């Protein structure tokens, strides 16, 4: 593969990865517990979320490999895992590395989910909230195509999709909390009602 082909492959796979990561975020955010729309197959949405995340990882892998193999600029294998280790465009590539590291953590923890405590898995999964925006900023910071109108439009669309999904999720969680009956929320200790032993009268 010559350098130009690698370069195109890097850019194309990067854009596709961004779209797939956005879709993954949206599908992960827009879930509720019951009750929800009667005919909406929640389990299927979760499966699709998983499968799209796998596709996203594949395209990120293509994006990373082609960028390293391309000798036109020197990035180096180290920069795949260590942020800001690339001589070329140190800062923006570094952001990409950070996004990648976080994404790998999320992915691997999900593969090992059965062996992790639910709280641990959940905490690591929340790193996705950090990974996605960093990936978005990396996309535009790299500069290669970021002045193209369609790329800008795409980026805006992705940001909007995740923003709206996040807002939806926050609101759904608030509604859920509010639906818990207040009598069930009394985490207040009992007041003392018996402070002395009582046996009055002829017992």
């Amino acid at each position, binding site marked *: 593969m010559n350098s130009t082909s690698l370069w195109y492959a890097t850019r194309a796979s990067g854009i596709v990865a961004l779209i797939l990561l956005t879709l993954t975020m949206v599908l992960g955010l827009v879930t509720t*517990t019951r009750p929800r729309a009667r005919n909406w197959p929640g389990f299927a949405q979760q499966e699709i979320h998983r499968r799209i995340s796998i596709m996203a990882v594949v395209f990120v892998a293509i994006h990373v490999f082609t960028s390293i193999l391309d000798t036109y600029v020197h990035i180096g294998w180290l920069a795949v895992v260590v942020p800001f280790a690339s001589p070329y465009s140190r800062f923006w590539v570094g952001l990409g590395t950070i996004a990648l590291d976080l994404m790998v953590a999320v992915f691997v923890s999900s593969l090992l989910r059965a062996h992790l405590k639910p709280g641990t898995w959940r905490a690591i999964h929340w790193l996705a909230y950090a990974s996605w925006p960093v990936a978005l900023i990396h996309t535009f910071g790299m500069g290669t195509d970021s002045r193209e109108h369609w790329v800008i439009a795409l980026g805006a669309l992705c940001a909007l999709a995740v923003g709206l999904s996040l807002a939806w999720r926050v609101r759904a969680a608030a509604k859920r909390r509010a639906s818990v009956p207040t009598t069930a929320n009394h985490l207040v200790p009992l007041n003392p009602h018996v402070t002395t032993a009582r046996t009055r009268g002829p017992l």
Partner: protein
Amino acid sequence: MSGMRIRIDPVACEAYGYCAELLPEAISLDEWGYPIVDDRPLDSELMALAKRAVRDCPKRAITLLDKTSG
């Protein structure tokens, strides 16, 4: 008859309802979205779906028990 039964941990369960979607033959939902489990042993045809329900539960609340345990 596979002889396996479904058990749901009521503390872990948060009413996602995926189990009821996958196994309506054995799991229905109460008016608040929480699962009501049919206690009888599962048919063997349902085992594949049951295992999927176990895997898909976001809270790992559902497990399968064989005849000897529980």
